[in-house]
């Protein structure tokens, strides 16, 4: 039971994990990336279309990344080069992505709402032999779509890059004190661009995981707010890699608990609130504990 729940949690958390890890880069560079949602959606879409057209999962992934990066380019041009507001450009990316996916679906493929077809090739779950021998952990970690494993590797990579490489230091410096970074000759805008591209790549993977890993289809607006949940996970995790991962996972966990509890004799809507209330409670408790012994007055300048 617990194994099954955790297995589900991991699977459900993966798109959120990937998007959140991507968003973490922009977050660190002090770019509020509301566009995670749209980038994920366009990734999911391009992946499905490419998989349908070529039958190659590899080409699907590449197409998803390219498409998502084109949207990142839009975000960069309008948000950074032309100094538009990040939130507006992010929202515009989301609206644009939602519109474009259904438009293309309708005009180019003559379909509405759903794009599913036997020709669409999804990723196949991976079975790892040696995990069979490990009790408890084995069943949780085994038999997932490749993106699940990729996401774990990426989490480690992200941790390494952010904390142990020059690039990571520059990203953080740009995010915390742009002036300081500028004064030392770091090309601030270039760093910001790159973080948006990285988040686009990871969002594309998140989208692929959704449309070709968890499912093998595209449905209009199928990301369904996961980009915002990812954003929340970043903030909950206070911008640390581990924290972001943990909170993304917690969302998946709370959601899978919620699904299992739906058979209790409580109105379904209240059960469905569990993940959201759970996160708010966790944050409140963490916040309250941090406040103990605090002597400074006023809101902290975050």
């Amino acid at each position, binding site marked *: 039971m617990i194994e099954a729940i955790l297995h589900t949690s991991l699977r459900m958390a993966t798109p959120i994990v990937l998007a959140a890890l991507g968003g973490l880069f922009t977050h660190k560079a002090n770019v509020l990336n509301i566009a995670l949602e749209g980038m994920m959606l366009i990734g999911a879409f391009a992946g499905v279309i490419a998989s349908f057209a070529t039958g190659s999962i590899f080409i699907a992934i590449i197409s998803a990344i390219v498409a998502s990066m084109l949207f990142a380019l839009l975000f960069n041009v309008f948000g950074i080069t032309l100094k538009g507001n990040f939130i507006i450009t992010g929202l515009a990316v989301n609206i644009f992505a939602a519109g474009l996916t259904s438009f293309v679906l309708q005009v180019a493929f003559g379909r509405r709402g759903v794009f599913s077809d036997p020709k669409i090739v999804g990723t196949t779950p991976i079975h790892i032999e040696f995990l069979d021998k490990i009790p408890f952990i084995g069943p949780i970690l085994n038999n997932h779509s490749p993106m699940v494993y990729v996401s774990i590797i990426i989490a480690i990579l992200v941790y390494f890059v952010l904390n142990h490489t020059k690039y990571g230091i520059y990203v953080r*410096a740009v995010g*915390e*004190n742009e002036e300081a970074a*500028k*004064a030392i*000759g770091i*090309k601030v805008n270039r760093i910001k661009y790159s973080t948006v591209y990285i988040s686009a790549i990871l969002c594309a993977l998140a989208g692929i995981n959704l449309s070709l890993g968890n499912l093998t289809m595209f449905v209009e607006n199928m990301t369904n707010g996961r980009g915002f949940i990812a954003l929340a996970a970043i903030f909950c995790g206070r911008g640390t890699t581990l924290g972001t991962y943990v909170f993304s996972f917690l969302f998946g966990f709370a959601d899978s608990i919620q699904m299992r509890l739906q058979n209790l004799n409580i109105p379904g809507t209240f059960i469905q609130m569990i993940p959201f209330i759970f996160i708010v409670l966790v944050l409140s408790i963490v916040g309250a504990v941090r406040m103990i012994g605090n*002597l*400074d*007055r006023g809101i902290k300048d975050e």
Partner: protein
Amino acid sequence: MYIIETKNLTKKFGDFTANNNINLQVKKGEIHAIVGENGAGKSTLMNMLYGLLQPTEGEILIKGKHVTIKNPRDAINLGIGMVHQHFKLVPTFTIFENILLGDELTKGIRINKKKEIKVVKELIDKYGFNINPKDKIQNVPIGTEQRVEILKMLYRNVDILILDEPTAVLTPQEVDELLISLNELREAGKTIIIITHKLGEVKKCSDSVTVIRKGEIVSRVETNDVTEKDLAKLMVGRDVLLQVEKSEAKIGEKLFTVNNLSVTNKQKIKLLNNVNFTVKRGEILGVAGVEGNGQSQLIKVITGLMKCTNGKITYKGKNITNYPSEKIRKLGIGIIPEDRYKHGLCRNMKISENLMAGYHDTNKFGSTYHYNYNKIKTNRDELIDDFDIRVGSADGNVGQLSGGNAQKVIIARELSMNPDLVIASQPTRGVDIGSIEFIHKQLIKLRNDNKAVLVVSSELSEIMNLSDRIIVMYKGSVIGEVNAKETTKEELGFLMAGITDRSEVENNG
């Protein structure tokens, strides 16, 4: 041949000309001082040399060659390094990370932290600074930040080092040390440009001086040919009192008392330990001490930014322990905070708005429910006049003001409300001598009007000139109290180092 030369360099901000046809000349291997009033355009000039600002007109020649400096990277490549007046450090990074920012040492693609720490430690030791490379910037006092900035440039091995008011936040000992290191750097062949408001330092270390007034060079002299007074006069255009005279204090009743004040933080460290003192009407009480000995916390607690864990504060007989600053100001206490741009001003708000903050709920600016813009404007214009605040545009934001003028905005705001007590922390940090004279006069006037001033300063001469009585803080406690007229720099120095029993030292020595 000059290592740095500018030809008719001009910088305009909109209609305002901050630098006008500047022809700066600096010789290789000299220490060149630049002096001028607040807002004269010194930082602007330096920022152009460092690529942070682009000139509107004119040319820059480095080592005789025409150059375009688009950004700091270009400047560093040309061998120019700059330490800014307002620090540019990353608060959550450690000292070593800040120093090596942009020049990290790596092993493969991984940053080699061990090596970085070692290298920075060596650098720190080489220049004899007393800082720990692993501390985070957000946890160190402002003086340490300054040193980190200097080390950042020294590490980069630049030929030309620009220091924009490097000594403003250093203790006297640190200043001496810095000046010695600057000398060493010069011996090693480096050229140094130093901006400072402290003419003593100019005399002590520089070879030549450029004086800027209102965006133009008024004079370039060899340091040995002038006295401090001459320089002051060149800067301001009139004679300046380097030390404000004050009459005998007429001490009145007790106004403000601090009893057994203690602050223990989350980590159970005592930041303040049983602090006791009283401020009486008609006096100026100075708080001296090496920075980082609890003065900042003391000020935070008595100005309502932080709560104490123990103790009592009384004002006019009323218990005001742990009052927020809102209430404190209402009781007639003026507050001049240490960190100008963090607690005193808002860069992105108008001058007029900054001049009402803290008193924005009094009926001076209309009623509580309706502001009267005429009153707000009148207040602004009056204060700009009365306190001689030099503004480009009175309608502009405080962020456009030079450091000294920004400070005057705070002084004007707090003093104009006619307080009975002023708590002033580093009131003249980074302020030009003309303005120092002015601010000191204002504070003394207050004292003469039977009001009181509590002043915290790391500038010993300021403390000694202004105060009637001085307490010295050491490791969160008041270690001693002296009479300002009778004490000596030496005595204060000992107290600040935590030595109370001088005989002990003398016997040992």
